[in-house]
């Protein structure tokens, strides 16, 4: 990790890796979509709408993963003062927020035909919603503070406190849900997964993961360039 502290070397690495990352992403999506839309069978209860799971669950996985990524990057930024760590955290946030939004929206689209309402306060959706708020708060902090160094430190604190809070939220929302739920469990996961459903899900999961990694690298590169741009503009202002 130390060898990538040099932004220029990191950028060169990204340039090298990027086309391959895109290739892997596209291939995985091609296979995943084929499996999800063509090969996977109908569910005996949900019919065709079970296919929504293949875009909902991976989005939720990545939404969570992106936040963990942000938190780890923030921790590295605070503890090791790695120069690229806070940029990595900042870059991950909008991407994670998009995936969280997708998880919520597709969850809503999955729920409507099943339960008749556009929104249910089901445990997982509720946790997702709070996660979305965590992302928004983190992004807002970066926009609220002018000095990038200061913004990075405050944002890192916000990300880490949020990360500690995340399992607590999950636990409390699950508790709240079981407290108010009658015997019939309304789980958006549906019945247990059999292999015909599991394989498309895993492939789509891998596709989403590949997409996230690719996007994250692109975003980090943009952040590095933005920081360099700012430094150069400041240097130019110094000269005047």
């Amino acid at each position, binding site marked *: 990790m130390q060898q990538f502290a040099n932004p220029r070397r990191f950028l060169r690495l990204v340039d090298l890796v990027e086309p391959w990352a895109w290739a892997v992403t596209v291939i995985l999506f091609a296979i995943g979509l084929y499996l999800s839309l063509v090969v996977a069978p109908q569910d005996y209860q949900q019919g065709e709408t079970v296919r929504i799971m293949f875009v909902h669950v991976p989005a939720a996985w990545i939404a969570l993963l992106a936040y963990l990524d942000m938190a780890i990057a923030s921790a590295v930024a605070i503890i090791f003062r790695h120069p690229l760590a806070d940029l990595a955290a900042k870059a991950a946030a909008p991407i994670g927020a998009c995936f969280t939004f997708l998880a919520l929206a597709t969850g809503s689209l999955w729920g409507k035909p099943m339960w008749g309402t556009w929104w249910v306060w089901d445990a997982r959706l509720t946790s997702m919603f709070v996660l979305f708020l965590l992302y928004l708060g983190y992004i807002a902090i970066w926009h609220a503070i002018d000095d990038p160094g200061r913004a990075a430190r405050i944002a890192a604190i916000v990300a880490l406190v949020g990360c500690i809070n995340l399992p607590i939220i999950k636990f409390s929302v699950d508790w709240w849900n079981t407290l108010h739920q009658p015997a019939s469990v309304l789980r958006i996961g549906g019945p247990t997964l059999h292999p015909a459903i599991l394989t498309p899900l895993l492939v789509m999961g891998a596709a989403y993961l590949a997409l996230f990694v690719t996007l994250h690298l692109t975003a980090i590169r943009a952040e590095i360039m933005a920081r360099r741009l700012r430094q*150069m503009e400041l240097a130019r202002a*110094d000269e005047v």
Partner: protein
Amino acid sequence: MDLAAPHLGFVFAAYGLSLLVLLGLVLWLRHRSRTLSRALQQLEAHGAPRRRAVAEAP
């Protein structure tokens, strides 16, 4: 896929929305990268120094 199934619209909506949002994300990030890279190239072409004369506070 059974094209006559009920609620098929929801499936298309879900996949369509996912495609839209993810594509939008990709395009936004690429656009941002390109804009920044162009701005950097312009500044470098005009011979701007890469670092401040006095080091920035960490």
